[in-house]
């Protein structure tokens, strides 16, 4: 008999190693992804992209207590043969792709999440009227040879609707430590809520309902500034289909450009919500959120690095495909796959869009109050509405996209300052006390908020006036 080396995978690897690569919140998001993929399997792909209420009627409910975790959905359940053959294997085989726009690809999410959380689990599911329960026991991990999980038959009345519940008990000690007091549990729920809002807002807007400990999570819709006139603040838009992947890109201002004071606030470490940056969405799922690094084109190929001057710029790129392996996301679904050739091409457009707006903030630098006349007349509109909109709606906002090379592109012509004479910026600092004295001198009312740059400008104007008078 030939001598061989043992290449068997160990359970240790799946239970202790793979779970290290993922944060707890992300592991729970993986379970939510499974719910959504369930909806896609139920409803099929037809009209997914256009249907604004695609997920309506579907929901997932997460219950967290100090010694158990449970997620329950009504998203169709796991077909019995899938459970027996694939769903509980550690990883997916190449034949299991189903040609649907899901986000699960690797067949690892549910198991990884379970072992991240605890040692014992019950996966109860009902599909096509058949209800059963897959049991993961504590002893499973200790037995190196047997990889099967027992299945118990359930009465179909035990599960009220076609769907799945994953319940984990015997929590790992690290998890226990995070949930063992009421305060800590509350704080965890808070951070999980933030994570879900960040990643699932789009899905919630399309009708999916997510609850944590019976509290419904609200979507956080993203809005961009659009003005109605021919010229004015408008977003940059790019849409193209690459094989099975359709891409929509939109970038623009979500907030007016910051004033000098706001820029200074940023350097003083004042915390404010920074909603700037790129968000990348794959099959409705956010994989990168408000990114401000080279991953999304900042600080490369002529685009400046992110700086508070660009705090108003926000972009969203959505990738949709019936073949999820083509999507530019990493295995954890928490990042973009930079080796994707589709992403490389889209990234050129992302940089092009970014430059349009970084350039805009540059040309208006030092003339913020003049610039504000433009950004203030623009309205905030949910970006989804702009992307979904028909030509007539777009044209009512002066968005006339051009079609070329298989793509739809709209590059806005943003307002420019009147090129009467070039401007320079003057910056200086003076004792606060003295600035307050001048503030009172100019306004005769110390209850008005102090605006140092305005006072500086007034001083300049007065002296300039004087010098002109002397000359005259």
């Amino acid at each position, binding site marked *: 008999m030939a001598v061989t080396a043992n290449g068997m995978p160990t359970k240790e690897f799946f239970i202790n190693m793979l779970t290290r690569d993922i944060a707890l919140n992300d592991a729970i998001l993986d379970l939510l992804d499974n719910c959504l993929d369930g909806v896609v399997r139920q409803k099929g792909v037809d009209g997914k992209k256009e249907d604004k209420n695609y997920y309506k009627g579907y929901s997932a409910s997460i219950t967290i207590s100090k010694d158990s975790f449970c997620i329950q959905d009504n998203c169709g359940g796991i077909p019995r043969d899938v459970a027996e053959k694939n769903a509980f294997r550690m990883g997916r085989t190449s034949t299991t792709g189903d040609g649907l726009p899901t986000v699960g690809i690797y067949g690892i999410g549910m198991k990884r999440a379970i072992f991240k959380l605890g040692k014992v689990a019950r996966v109860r599911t009902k599909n096509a009227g058949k209800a059963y329960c897959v049991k993961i026991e504590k002893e499973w991990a200790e037995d190196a040879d047997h990889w099967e999980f027992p299945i118990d038959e359930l009465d179909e009345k035990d599960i009220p609707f076609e769907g799945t519940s994953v319940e984990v008990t015997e929590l790992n000690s690290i998890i226990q430590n995070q949930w063992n007091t009421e305060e*800590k549990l509350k*704080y965890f729920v*808070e951070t999980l809520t933030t994570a879900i809002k960040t990643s699932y807002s789009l899905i919630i807007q399309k009708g999916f309902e997510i609850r944590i400990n019976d509290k419904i999570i609200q979507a956080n819709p993203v809005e961009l500034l659009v003005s109605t006139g021919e010229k004015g603040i408008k977003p940059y838009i790019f849409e193209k289909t690459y094989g099975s992947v359709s891409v929509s890109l939109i970038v623009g201002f979500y907030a007016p450009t910051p004033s000098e004071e706001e820029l200074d606030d940023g350097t003083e470490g004042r915390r404010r919500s920074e909603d700037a940056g790129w968000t990348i969405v794959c099959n409705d799922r956010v994989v990168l959120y408000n990114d401000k690094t080279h991953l999304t084109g900042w600080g490369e190929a002529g685009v400046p690095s992110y700086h508070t001057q660009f705090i108003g710029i926000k972009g969203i790129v959505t990738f949709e495909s019936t073949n999820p392996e083509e999507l530019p996301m990493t295995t954890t679904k928490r990042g973009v796959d930079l080796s994707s050739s589709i992403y490389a091409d889209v990234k050129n457009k992302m940089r092009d869009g970014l430059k349009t707006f970084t350039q805009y903030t540059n040309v208006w630098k030092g003339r913020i109050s003049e610039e504000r006349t433009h950004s203030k007349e623009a309205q905030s509109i949910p970006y989804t509405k702009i992307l979904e909109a028909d030509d007539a709606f777009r044209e009512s906002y002066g968005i006339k996209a051009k079609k070329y090379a298989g793509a739809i592109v709209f590059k806005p012509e943003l307002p420019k300052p009147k090129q009467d004479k070039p401007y320079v910026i003057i910056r200086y600092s003076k004792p606060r006390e003295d600035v307050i004295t001048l503030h009172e001198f100019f306004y005769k009312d110390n209850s008005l908020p102090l605006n140092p740059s305005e006072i500086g400008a007034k001083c300049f104007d007065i002296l300039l006036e004087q010098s002109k008078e002397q000359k005259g």
Partner: protein
Amino acid sequence: MSEKQPFYHLRPNKYIDRNLFTQCLFYLKRILPIEDYYYIGFGSFLFDDFKMMHTQLDISNMISIENDPNVCRRAKFNKPYSCIQIENCDSSDYISSMDMGDKNCIFWMDYTSPSDLGRQISDFCSLLDSSNPKDIIRITLNANPAALNGKIQSEDEDDSDAIAMLTAEEVHKKRLTTLKARIGDYLPEDVEPDQMTRGAYPIVLLRTLEKAAMSVLFENPPYQNRFILPLFSSVYEDGQQMLTLTGIVLDDRDEAKSVKECLSKFSPITFSWDKPVQIEIPPLTQKEIIYINNLLPCENAKQQIKDNLSFSIAKDSAIDSYISFYKYYPNFHHVSL
């Protein structure tokens, strides 16, 4: 702490709140060496809290932080005891550079300005981050939701007139936007516009402080044991609605138990983040005070007061407040010097 309010020490509701604090420390003195603690606060030039700390609790290590150089000179002139050290610096700078070693302190961040809320909460976080177990932290914030109506962008014209034109929903929405801009991620996820009311806004602030505290002190034994036990919080108004939270930093759950036992008889104590006591004492005459105090303490005091007096002295909530805090009711008298 501002010069614009010369009668700072005469604010009766604040006076009671301050008294509750000293009373709470008085209880804690049974299990903690309060007299050895450092007291750090914003004494301005009146030092009301400092006087109480020194005379009632024997604290002699005291530091007052004052940013305004003029008030600072005035404070040096007015300071009542030699053991008060006055630091002329910004409170954020002070907190970020302070190093107490292993000494314990009682730190009262007595803020007033609503527009600096974001900085105040991040100061609270920095303070917690450098705190020692058994430190006592107290923070006062402006809890007047109307302070969120104002201008968001400095270029905007004053919108106080425009506010009058808006519906309640629109005002609430605007307030929440301002709050979000001021405190960013510290804001709890589930806050809705309809919580931007007088009654609910203090609770939102308390939950914000809880979230901020948890983000710094996430107890994770064995290497990270610190947590904050909230002791009590109060909402009161002498012109502007204010909120105060008092808590103690601990590193041992058993210690939390003994703190709870020690304070079990102290009625304002809730040990919870979001159940503040309301302090809204009614203005009463000497004669009324003596009469009502004769009835107290007593189970159905409010009914008795209403039955025995042929006139109404205050609304129900104010009578309740008086019954809860009559022991701390201030008596201000005119004195000619």
